[in-house]
């Protein structure tokens, strides 16, 4: 069963909350990972890895730099589902 964008956003918010300690409801689509959520490149790789496991998708290493906002990641993950 494919995850909807809303499912992916909710799941990603949980992952980000776990990694950063921020409340999950503060992780919204328009937030920038670096500027708003203060996530550095190593934490980003941790989030990417957990997202790959959770949504059964592959996020290539050279794609990660294109995921500037939470919404970018939600769009990529939703589209990457088989």
């Amino acid at each position: 069963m494919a995850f909807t964008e809303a499912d992916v956003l909710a799941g990603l918010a949980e992952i980000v909350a776990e990694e950063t300690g921020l409340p999950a409801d503060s992780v919204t689509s328009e937030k920038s990972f670096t500027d708003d959520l203060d996530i550095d490149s190593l934490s980003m790789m941790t989030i990417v890895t957990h997202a790959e496991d959770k949504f059964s998708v592959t996020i290539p290493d050279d794609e990660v730099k294109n995921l500037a906002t939470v919404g970018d990641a939600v769009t990529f993950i939703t589209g990457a589902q088989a």
Partner: protein
Amino acid sequence: MTIQLKQSTGPQFSRILGIGAERGELVVTNDDIAGPIDSSDEWIRQRTGIITRRRAGAQTSVLDLSEAAARKALDAAGLTGADIDAVIVSTVTYFHQTPSAAAVIADRLGATPAAAYDISAACAGYAYAIGQADALVRSGAARNVLVIGAEKMSDFIDPTDRSISFLLGDGAGAAVVGPSDFPGIGPTVWGSDGSKAQTIRQTHSWSELKENPELGWPTLRQEGQPVFKWASFQMPVIAQQALDAAGVTADQIQVFIPHQANMRIIDQFIKQLKLPETVVVARDIADTGNTSAASIPLAAERLLREGAAKSGDLALQIGFGAGLVYAAQVVVLP
């Protein structure tokens, strides 16, 4: 008539008999190196857990570091050079393609005519060599094997490089492996992934430097994000395999000694392996830096010397790095 060859056989078990360590004599702070990479003490601590790193002075060579560590390991094992019949040096920072560092070290220690050779397995080199030493002892190819992981990483750094240079330190760690009346070295789980060879690399080869001297001295680079992901999420799987192969669980070991690459990778290992808080975790990187092949024995020696670990403790150790290569095993600390 068929002639039947003899094949060697050895003792049933092997173990580490003694460990020795030698750090570079200089203490290099984050402030000392932050300028050329437009960084800060806070940024480096937050990203790596490193507060200071140890580096060797201009007059101290990989051979000097190796010899000093080896002498301490021999003392700890209650042996002399004459008792050693194989020397394995793991290094990627020795300046001679040939002869090997191992042959020179063997001679300095009075171990001649011990078999002697170098291996290139970067940050996995010590665990690779412990696996080899275990096999040599138990096959009867050697009675006592001296393993050395030695690096002078500071000879291959670029002060303006933000990818890896600021992590690196210098040192050597050594272990003597010999026969045992109990199992002291679990099965080595090891491997490589050359498809990721470019993720940690020398900027250019010696032949390229010969063709174009303007390239300057080669230094090291890494692609931090892919390497972090590989180390943090694939290497714990290898570490778990080493536990499984040894027949022990995470709550049955006393000590965890991962390659000291980055404190945040160490923290991920603890999470992924679900290590209980009772397990002592080596965090030598904080004031030694990443010393590649030397990092595991440096950390092990320190834990033993400071009393955080004791003789007889079960330790899970894992090395991983440029190649990419990795090796892990459970050992009984000497």
